[in-house]
């Protein structure tokens, strides 16, 4: 065995150097697919770049200009509503789902797999399904309600402001419930049964056991799933793009869809980058909060 191979053996034996080596592919991926686009996005947002046209540095003009844009105001408000309305519903309904699935029921494993479907099916595909359900002309819901004599004409699910916002929030909730449900279920199954037994001996009823035993045990998981869900909801795109493309009259635009429209249809990618980067402080706040919480609980 020559000295070179001995050196390489030592290098691989050392935990620190092996760790760096194993981390390297991940680091490269993060640099290429996250860090580079992120810094490029920051640079673009400070320029007046259009597709196919090199831009010039214009400082914070894109950011200040957006503050005077009615559609951007509406977009920011829509995004806020979208996240604030959907996450609590997903958390509550996910908790309910987890509590049901935590019971001993027949075919529990297939049922658990089945309820994951909304989360597993590609969003673009499931959104298309919902697009057909909400179809202004051929909606099966409208058809059923007309047949039952409840309404006279089709419901304008995606063409009326309140109904359109409700519809996209509902689809987002439908898609997100399984994530909460399965995550919370994992937390529920980790609650030691002895705690429940002890509380029952002490005379606690089911509700008291849920509030005083179960909830404190799954608080961490609830917090993490909620924070992740807020981040994902803010950064959503596919669902709204398939259902409404931000219409009618921009009433369902969120940051992602508005940036896409300005950048790829309007070719103003500098401005589009600024729109998406307005999300950054919000997402950074939740991400830092999440990371700090995870470290603390770990």
């Amino acid at each position, binding site marked *: 065995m020559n000295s070179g191979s001995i050196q390489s053996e030592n290098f691989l034996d050392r935990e620190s150097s092996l760790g760096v080596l194993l981390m390297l592919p991940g680091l490269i991926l993060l640099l290429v697919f996250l860090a580079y686009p992120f810094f490029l996005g920051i640079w673009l947002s400070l320029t007046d770049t259009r597709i196919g046209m090199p831009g010039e540095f214009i400082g914070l003009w894109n950011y200040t200009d957006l503050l005077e844009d009615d559609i951007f105001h509406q977009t920011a408000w829509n995004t806020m509503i979208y996240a604030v309305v959907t996450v609590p519903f997903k958390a509550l309904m996910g908790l309910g789902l987890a509590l049901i699935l935590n019971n001993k029921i027949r075919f529990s494993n297939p049922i658990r797999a089945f309820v994951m479907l909304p989360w597993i099916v590609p969003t673009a595909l499931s959104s298309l399904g919902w697009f057909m359900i909400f179809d202004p002309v051929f909606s099966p819901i409208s058809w059923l309600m007309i047949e039952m004599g409840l309404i006279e004409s089709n419901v*304008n699910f995606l063409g009326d402001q309140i109904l359109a916002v409700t519809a996209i929030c509902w689809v987002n909730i439908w898609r997100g419930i399984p994530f909460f449900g399965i995550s919370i279920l994992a937390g529920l199954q980790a609650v030691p049964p002895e705690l429940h037994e002890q509380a029952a001996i002490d005379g606690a009823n089911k509700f008291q056991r849920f509030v005083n035993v179960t909830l404190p045990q799954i608080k961490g998981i609830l917090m993490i799933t909620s924070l992740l869900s807020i981040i994902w909801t803010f950064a959503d795109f596919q669902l709204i793009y398939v259902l409404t493309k*931000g219409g009618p009259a921009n009433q369902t635009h969120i940051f992602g869809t508005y940036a896409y429209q300005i950048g790829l249809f*309007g070719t103003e990618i500098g401005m589009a980058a600024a729109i998406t980067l307005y999300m950054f402080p919000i997402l950074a706040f939740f991400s830092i909060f999440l990371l700090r919480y995870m470290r603390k609980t770990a």
Partner: protein
Amino acid sequence: MEKVNDNQLKSIPEETAENGVTRRQIIKTGAAAGAVALMGGFPNISSAQNKTLNIVRGTYFIPGAQEIAKQQAAEFGKQAGVKVNADFLNWTDLNTKIGAGIQAGGIDVIELWPVQNHLYANNLVDMTDEAEEVAARGGGFEEYVLNSGLVNGRYLGIPHGNNAGTIAYRISAFEKAGVKHADKGGMDMTWDEYFAVAKECKKMGMPFGQSLGHSLGDPIGFCYPYMWASGALEVGDDGKTILFNTPTFEYALNKFVQAWKDGYDETGTSWDDSSNNRAYLSGKISSTFNGASIYYASKRRDDGGELMNDTHHMLMPKGTAGRYHEFGTQTMGILNNSKNIDVAKEYLKWWFQPENFDKWWRIQEGYQLHHVKNLADDPMWQDDPKMGIFKEIPKYGRLRGFAGNPNEKASLAASKYIVVDTFAKAVQSGDAKDALEWGERQLKRIYR
């Protein structure tokens, strides 16, 4: 074959024929075609082996046209000895693909919507010579092609016409509503008259349908002409002055708001480009603005020709300021970052040969309007008189951004759906004044 050299060409007087084609252009075209025929291949393709030609086109509402375009691309690949990839994308997604192609490469030939040759002018190969060759062979370009296909006097791609949209309607519903000669088609209506028919039709349970959603085809194709016909413009000819919020347009928009309630399917605020097709073909609506695809589909229905016989077309109604259609030519362009510009040029020259192009064009039965004058008299037009009205559309054609240029600002206004959303806001709130003020504010931001 007698060879014609450049000096001989120059000695021929630049006499322009009635159709706008010069004698010199005709001889040049003949000589070029003859050279290709004699050499039996594509002499301008250098070392064709291992070359891949990537063609991106819009998807077609006439399925046969897409199939032929696909077969022709494969045929060219076989003849030229290159690998050809032909993708057909949703028209709405084409911008995204072009943007990606410009930034990252990978696209050679691209099919462009009318204003995209202006929008991506810096990224397209100048194909003036090739376009003029096509024009010369076809008896000259139609006027609308000359008006919309040129970017600063150059052709940044070869124009190939466009699918025009107009009003399709059910003859029986219009007759019941009291419209005379509805079975003859081509009625010369005003918007007021058209809305009055809508009201009657809605009473009969067959309202009119119009998309006002975020979709780049029908909503824009309807709202811009209505705006122009009402005496308003996005911007004046200085490209800066906004002439949108005018008293005449406010008056007309109020009428549209009322008509929407009285005569339209009010779910149209969420319709896309295909919703009205489906609604019409299923008998839910009696009239809509659309390309000829509705009629084309009705001809292929298994209903004994009932819907086909009951469908006809008319031009957009007139407003106080005239009649307009949003119309310009599409072009087949080449991205200037392509590594296969030679192959791409040969492909386009080959595809625009009459034996290829005309086959693709004819199968659409008038859905795609012709680009060159010779095709105006093509026997195809005799096959179905109901399609004849489509040939009239270019006379009333304007491009987005009129009276300014169809530049990036006009595209930004269209991509932000400012005009369409003004209509959508007006019908949702019932407040045309407020909607117009909103639209004006947005346009001022864009055209500042």
